[in-house]
């Protein structure tokens, strides 16, 4: 009788190439995603050492971080960003790596296109020089962000040196109320455990509320694992997963499909397998969440008040809260509802998929963005953009007064010119509210697409549950 294993153990065991005593394991990588920002120095390293890319057929690239989201017919104004893009194009051509670049119908944010193309599959190891690689864990893959030195290692050897991670069970029981979404689950988790709570661990999200989620909702949750300190977070695959993957361009077909599903059904954590840590969240009790501070752990239910530093007993935490409230220019004890908003951003690898846009559009239909508020909607990929246009979502956004953009990371990382001005407040569906993240001096409230859209209409932070017909709005779905 073998020991019961977690899904992390199973994927791990399947991918250890060799391990010397006292050394980390040499771990095989099934899929390596590459983008323009964290790869140039890795390719330079290969050239300096005279190395090639070991498995170009298990590597795929796109341009997403620094590209403009203005019409593609316009030239790139940022010479440095343009040089980075052309370097990516040259690197991919020289080393035989397929590139879904600007102008390609499959271009998009790296964590949106992997699943969309069917490249992301259960049981895989997936890496990328981007911390939100954890997104792909939604499929029951072990997926994590790496640095540029590691990008070079994976390019050269299709392996990485890794220590076995600890496991952290995140059990979400119960059912979400209308107006409460996957984004609220993950913001609630991070608010509870803090931004360093998952360090050294891989989250496994489990429980009834997780099972009930669509794949896109699961991606939203796994995406922000890193904001809780965990390099990876995953969800065991089930019929929802298989249904999403089936028929996608790179998914196994015919007899291969049946064999793959049979293999994937073996992946879920065995009964009785032990986790190093565990936490339970009651989905029934969750409200829409929003952040008030300068890291994703500074989140509260939207009907709550901004916490007061005087209530913090730990001096370091008190200092951090004082500093955050000063940066955000918020008063201790003030309600977050009703807080003025200048910009609303809908997009990113967290919430830039078609179901996110459907939700935002449902909330905006036959309404107008409040005077003085700028709403920017950035689809997560070119395919998401086309689909949103086919479904008429783009027309709804435009009729509401929103700015409908091309796909890319855009204002989530604000390195392409899409950014806040100093002092502006934004409700953002992205993943980070760090100081200056969305533009130097900009102030970010992280929230769900529904909360973002409701806040755009009202011009202030707004509880989406107050929108008329919230039950039917919340039922707007996707795969």
């Amino acid at each position, binding site marked *: 009788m073998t020991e019961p294993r977690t899904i992390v153990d199973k994927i791990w065991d399947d991918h250890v*190439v*060799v391990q010397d005593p*006292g*050394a*980390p394991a*040499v771990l*095989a990588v*099934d*899929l390596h995603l590459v983008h323009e*920002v*964290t790869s*140039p*120095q890795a390719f*330079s390293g290969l050239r300096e*050492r005279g190395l090639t890319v*070991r498995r*170009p*057929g*298990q590597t795929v690239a796109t341009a997403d*971080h*620094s590209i403009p989201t203005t019409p593609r017919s316009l030239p790139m104004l940022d010479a440095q960003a343009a*040089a*980075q893009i052309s370097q990516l194009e040259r690197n991919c051509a020289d080393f035989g790596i*397929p590139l879904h670049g600007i102008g390609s119908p*499959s271009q998009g944010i790296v964590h949106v296109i992997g699943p969309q193309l069917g*490249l992301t*599959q259960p049981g895989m190891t997936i890496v990328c020089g*981007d911390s939100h690689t954890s997104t792909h864990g939604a499929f029951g893959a072990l997926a994590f*962000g*790496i*640095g540029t*030195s590691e990008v*070079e*290692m994976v390019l050269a*050897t*299709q*392996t990485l*040196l890794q*220590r076995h991670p600890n496991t952290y069970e995140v059990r979400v029981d119960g059912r979400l109320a209308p107006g409460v979404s996957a984004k609220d689950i993950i913001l609630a988790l991070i608010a509870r455990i*803090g*931004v*360093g709570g998952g*360090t*050294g661990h891989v989250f496994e999200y489990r429980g009834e509320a997780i099972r009930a989620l669509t794949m896109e909702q699961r991606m939203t949750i796994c995406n922000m694992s*890193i904001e809780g*300190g965990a390099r990876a977070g995953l969800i065991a695959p089930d019929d929802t997963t298989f249904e999403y993957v089936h028929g996608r361009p*790179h998914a196994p077909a015919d007899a291969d499909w049946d064999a793959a599903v049979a293999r994937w059904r073996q992946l879920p954590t065995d009964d009785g397998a032990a986790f190093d840590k565990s936490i339970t969240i009651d989905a029934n009790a969750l409200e829409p969440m929003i952040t008030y501070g300068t*890291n994703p752990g500074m989140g509260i239910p939207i009907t709550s008040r901004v916490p007061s530093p005087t209530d913090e007993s730990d001096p*370091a*935490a008190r200092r*951090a809260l004082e*500093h955050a409230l000063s940066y955000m220019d918020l008063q201790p004890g003030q309600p977050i509802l009703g807080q003025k908003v200048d910009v609303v951003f809908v997009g990113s690898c967290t919430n830039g998929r078609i179901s996110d846009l459907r939700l935002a559009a449902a909330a905006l239909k036959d309404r107008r963005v409040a005077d003085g508020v700028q709403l920017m909607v950035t689809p997560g990929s070119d395919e998401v953009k086309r689909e949103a246009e086919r479904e008429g979502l783009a027309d709804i956004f435009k009729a509401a007064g929103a700015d409908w953009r091309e796909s890319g990371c855009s204002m989530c*990382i*604000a390195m392409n010119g899409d950014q806040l001005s*100093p002092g502006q407040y934004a409700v953002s569906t992205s993943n*980070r509210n*760090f*100081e*200056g993240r969305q533009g*130097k001096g900009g102030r970010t409230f992280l929230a769900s697409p529904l909360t973002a859209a409701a806040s755009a209409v009202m011009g202030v932070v707004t509880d989406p549950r107050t929108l008329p017909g919230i039950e039917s709005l919340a039922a707007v779905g996707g795969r």
Partner: protein
Amino acid sequence: MAQPIVVFTSKVIPIDKENVDTDQIVPARYLKVTDKDGLAEALFRDWRFEEDGSLTDPPFILDRPGMAGRNILLVGHNFGAGSSREHAPWALTSWGVRAILSTGFADIFRSNSLKNGLLPIVVPPDVHARLRDIIDRDPDADLTIDLSEQGVLLPDGSTVEFDIDPFAKRMLLAGTDELGYLLSKQSDIAAWEATHPPRIETRASA
């Protein structure tokens, strides 16, 4: 390839903040570079400089008198949170930082640092408080870091021990990198690949 870490002594720069994220260490607009050079000017950019390029008033600790040339940071818990950008350790080492003391580091930042000859040293909270206290009393106190002995020598002659992954230690002491080690495993990798066909082919026309 990183410079080998041997014993070194330096005064300390304290940064009394927890959860310092890599967006603070290097703001995203500096990520458009295609090499590793010149990132020292990006280090803690928005905490150090005004929009017009002048220093903040008062200056951030890095820019106060006597701080230039120091190699050791003492920082709050969970340093290096957030983005995986290796530009963070590149900027730190290019400014001159060689070791960082904290009660904890974010996983990816710790991993990236070790690959760049930057030593992340985890100490328990009581030791961290003691170090902070030493620097409070004497801002110019010297610490000596001895990687092979895994110790931090304090001004009073006592030593604080620290743990480090033995493999990472070996790499740092030798100044070699992990890629060299992985390349030495190519026959194992080839053997593994022979029994594990690729699960996908990204070049197949979709």
